[in-house]
């Protein structure tokens, strides 16, 4: 808990929390204190000197002393002046000095209108240039598909390198040279390697790093329409602002949610949106005529007639496939249409079993479910079986911050606060909170790990079981390694177990859950976090029984082909081999696919209903920690696209929101909290998706028609598709307690603060968007559940078998993101990875092809050697791993020999 202190600013008294610096205090009091090098997540370093204020010893002191507010802790009774003339002159000269080398290219700079430097320059009163010299110039670099580089605009705030290196652990961006010639870039042109590089576009206070995909369809900030949304590219549910103009999604900005993403998004989340604008998006209803073997467009009415006919055929057997990347509403509508027994989740068999285990454990309240913010506050993390840096990267960033906690505690003894970044790092040096990683290979978190244990899945399990045994009995039969890890967990105040479903290893997951449960009994502050595959995977799993997965679906089709298969936003070809799937789908009379993009599954359909993208629908999504979040459409649905639940509304008798949400609640009691989304309180005011009226956006379609058409009405939220309504977070200054859920903020803006830095102008309490979310796992009412113990046979498997494991990659794991050209550019070539020992054993050399087969699928890919991969492990690309399914075999002639373990 923080206490409040009283401070006097220009002789007026204010109350602020005592754990912040003076700059943050002033900003939260809505004062326009200019700054550059400070960032709420990166702390203070005192480099730019822009936030200077006059500090006085006491009431009698009239002389004062200039201090940098970002470097000054607030103390009880402190007296400062912001308006003091000397302080003002200093700030004015400072910005004049900063601007000596800055080009006058605002009109052609993409940061213009969204530029912290522009805002601060105006705030500080610098309007005339006195510096008579020549500006220094730099060469720019190619930094990959995500960012432009224009070093001449650099003002030397050092935020980029502090973010990239100190916060994200990146190595390939640095500051070079010295004096006023400092250069922020790479040693040579090339792709920025870090998964969070895209944030530099927001971290940079001016236009040095700008969003490159945005450049390709650039629009000024004031011409963008924006709404609060949820990132759909992994299971975390990061909060974003989607921005649009002319039916095209232009860029994704971070939306601050302190509990989840904080200030930063991963590159997949920031740049994965381009599927919305993709040329393969479906914009009308397509119907296949089997006689002529041709496809033709249908209008709305005929589409529904066809749908109705197929649904009502005599002897109709209808099966539906729900989607883990689609909303609860859409999945529930399909669930109602086909009936609970005929509803299958587009989730792999093993993952659905894992999800079932997770939700039951979460409901039983045996473990503490963590948020990303809480992960950052833990002091020991055991990360098991999941390369979160690739599957759900934002978690990795939080884990990286966690490792700093021991250093923060150390610095506290020197009186150094966590935000005193530079001092903190000098004291911390190599001190790190323990992070122990158990996985098949090293990851991008390995550099901050105390231990990287690269083990085959079986050995991972044995180690976990030993840890479990030790935690229960304290026996000395365990290996030293197990004892040391268990001791780390026991020595911690709030240890966390973090894992994911991407290993598809149910035993490993249940071991993690049991360890968490045991830890919780001993340490109430311990916690657990599990990444799942997609944004609504956990939500979808609540709509089905454990056997309603995609493998059981195929079995069901095989045993009794349905007359109608309705596939919603699921590309079955990501799960099965072409041959196998085509055989099964051919047995079905009618296939309806509701999807956004032309996938291989869509090509098999008899009727294609165009679905809205995340940017065109209001949706409720439940993330991996059971946080149900609301995403809002940023634009009306294009062409014939409709939100899937609307396509089905005529046929499933859920024709209004009230009925829909009532049905959702009836499926599972955990979904009760979603009831608050059913009635939209249009309230006394609306929020505008578009910014202030000062723009020329009404001229956008003037080449087509000079009339300004009435904006499309959004009856599902109190946001407008126009400038009418309260803009940005100005409304936060209103007393909005009674509108908690229904007043989302559509952007970040504050008077005089046009860049996203305006987020720092809100009061500290107001910053959180988490009031738009509801956690479904209620700790108050626990449903008893016993986490299954390990089955003897599994870990007694012979150790010398070769395990084929999935290899994840941030830019290939998510199917929608792969439609983004910028992301596609960085997608790695599909390869099989193993260590040298393994390669020797298989008599295979780097670059040679290895063939791996399963019951119905075969892959043949070149090999690459990585010696951090565990013995006995062969890594295959995630997509191929899924298609391989069960019974994977490395050709038998290899496995004959004794494997030297």
């Amino acid at each position, binding site marked *: 808990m923080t206490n409040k202190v009283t401070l006097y600013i220009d002789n007026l008294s204010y109350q602020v929390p005592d754990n912040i610096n003076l700059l943050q205090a002033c900003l939260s009091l809505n004062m326009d204190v200019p700054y550059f090098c400070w960032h709420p997540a990166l702390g203070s*370093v*005192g*480099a*730019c*000197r*822009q936030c*200077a204020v006059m500090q006085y010893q006491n009431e009698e002191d009239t002389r004062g*002393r*200039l*201090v940098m507010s970002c*470097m000054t802790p607030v103390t009880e009774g402190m007296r400062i002046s912001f308006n003091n003339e000397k302080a003002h*002159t*200093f700030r004015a*000269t*400072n910005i004049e*000095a*900063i601007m*000596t*080398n800055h080009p006058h290219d605002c009109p052609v700079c993409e940061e213009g209108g969204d530029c912290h430097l522009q805002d601060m320059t105006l705030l500080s009163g610098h309007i005339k240039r*006195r*510096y*008579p*010299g020549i500006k220094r110039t730099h060469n720019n670099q190619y930094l990959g598909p995500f960012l432009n580089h224009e070093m001449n605009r650099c003002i*030397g705030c*050092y935020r980029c390198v502090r973010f990239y290196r100190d916060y994200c652990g990146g190595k390939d961006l640095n*500051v070079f*040279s*010295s*004096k*006023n*010639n*400092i250069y922020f870039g790479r040693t040579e042109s090339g792709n920025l390697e870090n998964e969070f590089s895209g944030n530099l576009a927001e971290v940079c206070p001016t236009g040095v790093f700008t969003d490159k995909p945005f450049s390709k369809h650039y629009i000024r900030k004031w011409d963008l329409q924006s709404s609060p949304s949820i990132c759909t590219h992994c299971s975390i549910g990061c909060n974003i602002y989607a921005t649009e103009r002319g039916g095209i999604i232009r860029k994704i900005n971070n939306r601050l949610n302190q509990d989840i993403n904080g200030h930063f998004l991963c590159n997949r989340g920031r740049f994965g949106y381009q599927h919305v604008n993709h040329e393969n998006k479906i914009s009308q209803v397509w119907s296949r005529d089997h006689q002529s073997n041709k496809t033709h467009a249908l209008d709305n009415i005929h589409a529904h007639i066809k749908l109705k006919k197929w649904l009502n055929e005599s002897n109709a057997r209808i099966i539906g496939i729900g989607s883990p990347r689609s909303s609860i509403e859409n999945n529930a509508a399909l669930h109602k249409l086909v009936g609970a027994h005929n509803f299958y989740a587009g989730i792999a068999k093993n993952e659905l079993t894992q999800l079932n285990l997770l939700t039951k454990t979460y409901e039983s309240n045996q473990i503490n479910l963590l948020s990303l913010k809480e992960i950052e506050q833990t002091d020991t993390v055991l990360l098991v079986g999941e390369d979160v840096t690739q599957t759900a990267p934002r978690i990795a960033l939080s884990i990286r911050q966690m490792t700093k906690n021991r250093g923060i505690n150390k*610095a506290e003894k*020197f*009186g*150094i606060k966590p935000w*005193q970044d*530079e*001092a903190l790092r*000098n*004291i*911390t*040096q190599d*001190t790190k909170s323990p992070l122990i990683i158990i996985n098949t290979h090293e990851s991008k978190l390995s550099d901050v790990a105390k231990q990287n244990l690269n083990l085959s899945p079986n050995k991972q399990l044995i180690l976990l079981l030993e840890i479990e045994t030790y935690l229960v009995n304290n026996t000395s039969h365990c290996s030293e390694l197990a004892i040391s890890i268990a001791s780390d967990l026991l020595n911690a105040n709030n240890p966390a177990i973090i894992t994911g479903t991407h290993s598809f290893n149910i035993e490993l997951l249940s071991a993690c859950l049991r360890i968490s449960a045991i830890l919780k009994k001993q340490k109430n502050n311990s916690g657990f976090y599990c990444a799942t595959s997609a944004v609504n995977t956990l939500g979808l799993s609540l709509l089905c029984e454990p056997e309603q997965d995609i493998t059981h679906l195929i079995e069901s089709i095989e045993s009794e082909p349905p007359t109608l298969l309705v596939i919603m936003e699921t590309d079955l070809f990501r799960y099965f081999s072409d041959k196998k799937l085509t055989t099964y789908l051919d047995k079905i009379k009618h296939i309806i696919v509701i999807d956004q993009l032309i996938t291989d599954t869509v090509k098999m359909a008899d009727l294609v209903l165009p679905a809205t993208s995340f940017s065109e629908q209001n949706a409720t999504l439940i993330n991996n920690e059971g946080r149900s979040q609301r995403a809002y459409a940023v634009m009306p649905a294009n062409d014939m696209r409709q939100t899937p639940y609307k396509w089905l509304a005529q046929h499933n008798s859920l024709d209004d929101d009230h009925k829909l949400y009532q049905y959702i609640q009836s499926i599972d009691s955990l979904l009760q909290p979603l009831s608050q989304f059913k009635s939209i309180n249009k309230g006394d005011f609306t929020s505008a998706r578009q910014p202030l009226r000062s723009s020329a956006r009404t001229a956008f379609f003037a080449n087509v028609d000079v009339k300004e058409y009435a904006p499309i009405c959004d009856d599902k939220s109190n946001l407008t598709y126009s400038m009418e309504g309260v803009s940005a977070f100005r409304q936060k200054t209103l007393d909005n307690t009674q509108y908690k859920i229904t007043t989302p903020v559509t952007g970040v803006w504050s008077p005089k603060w046009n860049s996203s830095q305006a987020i720092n102008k809100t009061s500290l309490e107001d910053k959180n968007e988490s009031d738009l979310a509801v956690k479904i796992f209620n700790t108050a009412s626990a449903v008893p559940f016993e986490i299954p113990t390990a089955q003897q046979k599994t870990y007694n498997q012979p150790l010398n078998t070769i395990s084929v494991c999935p290899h994840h990659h941030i830019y290939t794991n998510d199917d929608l993101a792969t439609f983004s050209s910028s992301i596609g550019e960085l997608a790695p070539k599909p390869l099989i990875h193993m260590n040298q020992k393994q390669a020797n054993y298989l008599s295979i050399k780097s670059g040679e092809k290895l063939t791996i087969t399963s019951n119905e699928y075969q892959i043949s890919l070149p090999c690459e050697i990585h010696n951090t991969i565990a013995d006995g492990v062969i890594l295959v690309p995630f997509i191929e791993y899924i298609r391989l399914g069960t019974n994977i075999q490395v050709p038998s002639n290899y496995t004959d020999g004794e494997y030297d373990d």
Partner: protein
Amino acid sequence: MNSKQKNCPKKPLTRFITDDDNCWQLNQYKSFGGYEGLQQALTLSGSAVLDEIKESNLRGRGGAGFPTGLKWSFVPQGDDAPHPKYMIVNADEMEPGAFKDRLLLEKTPHQIIEGLIIGGYTLDADIGYIFIRGDYYTAIERIELALKECYNNNLLGRNILGSGFNFEIHIHTSAGRYICGEETALINSLEGKRANPRAKPPFPQVAGLWGKPTIVNNVETFCNLPHILNFGATWFKSLGRFKDAGTKIFGVSGRVKTPGLWELPMGTPIGEIIENYAGGMCDGYKLKGYLPGGGSTDFLLEKHLDTPMDYDEIGKQRSRMGTGTIIVLDDKYCPVAMVLNLVKFFAQESCGWCTPCRDGLPWAAVLLEKIEQGKGELADIQQLEDLCKFAAPGNTFCALAPGAVEPLQSALVFFRVDFEQHIEQQSCPYCNSDNLEDGDDK
């Protein structure tokens, strides 16, 4: 401690320097009483040695003049103190006009090493570093050999001279940045990081190199330690002619008859140094002003010549003693050109961290260049004054920029006429008055 019945020297720092080329070697050093101070120290407890240093009133010779004993007393002591602790000799002498450390480094490497070992013993430190300017080839070579001699003679390593005290010394040659003279930038550099100064607190005494307690002092400061231990604090205090204790190596450069270095008592008046030791101005040149303590100190004038070279006394005249190496400006050299040269140097040496230094100094350099080239406007003088205020102490991250504008701000006061003449005449009034070759041969 009582002053021993020894032949107490008047010029302790240079007493080992003879005409013999090998006077820097261990045997010669010892023959003049070298390492007696260390032996004396080893008979005492660390805290007793620290008390002696405090008692001596020794002030840091790097320029700031901070009392050495006080600085050292902030280092955590006792059994639960963090280890290793580090002692660092700042031998990265790069102040314009300063060449005093070079003399000590080349001629008396053992004196420095002895001082460093005493320092290490005082604070129970484990490792010493000599952070030396990379261009001081001779000094580097000699220190490396001297260190070898020490290791071979049990003056370094484990159980030094049977005392049970262990101490290692490493030499680190600097890559050549002025900012490394700033102790926290030096520490960053030693850690392999950019030589940017660090935020304080924490001070290096509690969290310095690798986050451990660290002391950084100038070469000359360390050189005083053996003598304080050897001859006592009372003797040391008696050396000074004014308030400050001990002697100091003073230097004079510029158009004086015999520029050079001399070990003189603290408090020796400036005029005496210039007249008696540097031989006064060269024929045909008059004294116009001088920087009393190197390139980053304010100008003083003829009227200040009576001021004793004493930290506080020079401070009263609104300048600083700095390194005690006086740079003389004569009446035929353009003061604007001199200031431009200095500001350019400091702008070049800015680490690039904070705005007033990184962008303010080059701006000042541009304005000075403009004036010197005869393109100046009167408004430029105002801008220069603004920039001096802009880079005032407290406004910047470290002391580089405030030091850098010291000669400029005082020149704008004392030599304002020269600035105005440049602007009025639209040319440098000194352009034909001087023949640089003449004066520079000394």
